C-alpha cells in the first residue's frame, strides 16, 4: 500500500477517535440548561468528524483519481539521503527543549548552535564558536532587554547564587 494511503489509514483512526469523543463522551457532563441550546460544544466537532472520516476513506479506497506524484523526497530511496543527520538534529531539538529552563538560555542555545553545526559536518571551530556565542548573546539581549520577554539566562543554581 502506498505511503499516502497508510497515512490516510492513521488519519481515519484519529478521526474515528475524535468522532467517538464528540458523539458519545463530550456531552456527558453538560449542564441541563445547556442541553436546551440548539448548539452544543460537540456540534461543530461532530460535523468535522464526519467530514474527516469521509475524506480519509475516499483517499484510502482511491476514489479520487490522479497521477501518482512523488514528493520532494522519494521515501522509497531513503538510503540516498542524509537521514542520520536529520534524526540527530531532531533529537538535538528535543534535548534543547528539555534543557532550556534548567540549564538557561545562554548555555543551551550556544550548545544547540555549536552541536547543530557539528552534526552537519562543520569543523571550523574558530568560526563556529564566535558565531554561536555572539548570536546567542545578541538574541538574548534583543528578546530579554529590548522586548522585555523574560528568559532565564543561566542555570537555576547560578541564578540562585547570584540572587537573580
Amino acid at each position, binding site marked *: 500500500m502506498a*505511503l*499516502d494511503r*497508510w*497515512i*490516510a489509514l492513521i*488519519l481515519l483512526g*484519529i*478521526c474515528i477517535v475524535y468522532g467517538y*469523543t464528540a458523539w458519545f463522551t*463530550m456531552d456527558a457532563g453538560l449542564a441541563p440548561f445547556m442541553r436546551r441550546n*440548539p*448548539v452544543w*460544544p*460537540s*456540534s*461543530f*466537532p461532530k460535523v*468535522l*468528524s464526519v*467530514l*474527516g472520516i469521509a*475524506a*480519509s476513506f475516499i*483517499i484510502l479506497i482511491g*476514489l*479520487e*483519481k*490522479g*497521477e501518482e*506524484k512523488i*514528493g*520532494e*523526497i522519494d*521515501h522509497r530511496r531513503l538510503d540516498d*539521503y*542524509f*537521514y542520520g*543527520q*536529520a534524526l540527530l*538534529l*531532531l533529537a538535538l*531539538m*528535543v534535548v*534543547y*527543549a*528539555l534543557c*532550556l*529552563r534548567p540549564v538557561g538560555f545562554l548555555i543551551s*542555545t550556544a550548545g*544547540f*548552535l555549536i552541536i*547543530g*553545526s557539528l552534526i*552537519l559536518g*562543520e569543523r571550523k571551530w574558530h568560526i*563556529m564558536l564566535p*558565531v554561536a556565542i555572539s548570536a546567542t548573546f545578541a538574541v538574548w539581549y534583543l*528578546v530579554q532587554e529590548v*522586548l*522585555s520577554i523574560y528568559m532565564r539566562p543561566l542555570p537555576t543554581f547560578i541564578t540562585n547564587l547570584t540572587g537573580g
Partner: protein
Amino acid sequence: MLEGILIGLQTALSLQNLLLVVGGCLIGTFIGMLPGLGPMSIIAIMIPIAVSMGDPSAALILLAGVYYGAIFGGSTSSILLNAPGVAGTVASSFDGYPMSQQGMAGKALTIAAIASFAGGTIGAILLMIFAPMLSSVALLFHSAEYFALMIVGLSAIAAFSGPGQVTKALLMTVLGLMMATVGEGALFNLPRFTMGIMDLQSGFGFITLAMAMFALPEAVFLVLKPKNLGDDGGEIKDLRISRAEARAIAPVIGRQSIQGFFIGVLPGAGATIASFLGYAVERNIAPKHEQAEFGKGSIKGLAAPETANNAACTGSFVPLLTLGIPGSGTTAILLGALIALNVTPGPRLMIDEPQIFWAVIMSMFIGNLVLLILNLPLIPYIAKLLAIPRNYLIPFILFFTLMGAYIGQNNATELLMLVGFGICGIALKFANYPLPPLLIGFILGGMMEDNFSRSMQLYGGMSFIWERPMTLGLLVLALVLVLLPILQSTRAHRNA
C-alpha cells in the same frame, strides 16, 4: 475631503511625524522578520512608547508604520526561509519560497515590496473614498455570512491544490479545523479534547503549528537533500523585474488591491483570508499553463497574496476608524492604544477630530512609500541570508523555529509539541499531503466555529443556511468549488 487631506498632510509631514514613520517601518521590518513576532505582538510592545508621546496623531502614525513594516518583515521570512511568522504571510511562502530556492530571492523580495506598496497605497485611496459608506455595508455581514465566507475560502484552497490532490487538501483542512477545537473555546468555556493535559487547556499555539508545518520540515528536507542554499544564488542581487513580468503582475496587483481591501473591511476577515482568497482567485483565473506554475515559483502567486494582505490591512482600518469596531487582533490593539490616548473612534471621529482621521490616512501613504524606499536598497543584503553556508544556516533556522514557538507561549512544553508536530509534518510531506490547508483550517477554525455557533443560536438550528440567501449562495459556491475539480480529474483519468 480636500480640506481633510490638507489637514492630514500638514500633520503627517511634520519632521517629527516623518521620523516616526521611518522609525516605525524600520522597527517593524526587522522585528517582523523574526518568526513568532507578528504585527500584533510588535504593536503591543510599542504601545507604551506610543502612548507616552501623548499626541494621538503621532502615536497612530508610529503604530501604522510599525504595522506595515511588520507585515513586510513577515513576508521576508516567508520568502527566504519558508518560516511565516504571521498567518497573513503564509500564502506568500507558497511561491515566494520556491522562487528563493531557484536563486530568485532578490526578485521575489522586490515583487513583494512593490506589491505591498501598491496594495497599501491603493487600499489607502479606497479607504479615503469609501470609509464612510463601507462601514454600513460591513454591518450587513452577519455571523452566518462570515461562516459561509470562511467555508468558501477553505474550499477554494482545497479546490486549487492540483489534480488528484483535492481530497488530501480537504482532509488536511478538516484536520486543521479539528486541531482548532482543542482547548477551552471562548464560546462554551469548556475544555475539549484536552485529555486532561493542562498545557492543552489553551489549545495549540498558532506559531508552534506554523513552524512545525513549514520551517521544520523544510529545514529537515534541506538536511536530507544537501544543497547549499547559496548554490543557485547567482541572481540574488538581481532585483530587476522584466517588462513582461511587470505586465504580468500589474493586473494581479490591481485586482487584489481592490479585493483585498474589501475583504479587509469585513470585521474578522482580515489579511489572512484576503491573502488566501487572493491567491486562490488568481490561480483560478490564470491560463492553464500558468496555473501549473502556482506553488512552484509563480510571480503572480507571490504578487497576489502580498498585494491582498497589505490592502486588507488598510481595509481593516475602516470599521476601526468609522465604527470603533476592531476587525482584527491588530486593530483591536490599536483600539486599545486610541482609548489610552483619550480618543474614541467611531462615526464622530471624522467630525470631532478630523486631524487624527486624516493624519492616519496620510501616514499610510507616507509609510508605504518609506517602506518601498527603505527596503528596495536593503533587499540584496536581506537576501544574502541565503548565502550563509548550510552548516550554519540550518541550526539557525531550527533555533529561530524553536524561539518562535517559545516566545509565543513562554512554555518549554510547546517546544516538545513543535518537534512532535514537525515529525508529523515531515511524514505528511513525504506522502505528498499539502500542508498549507492544515494551517489555514487551524487559523480559521476558531472564528468559523464561533460564527457557526452564533448562527445556530440565532436561528435555533441550521435554518440560517436557507433563510439567508447570501449564506446559501456562498455555500453553494463552496460545494461547486470542491466537487468540480474532483469530477474533472476523475473524468480525465477515465478518458486517459
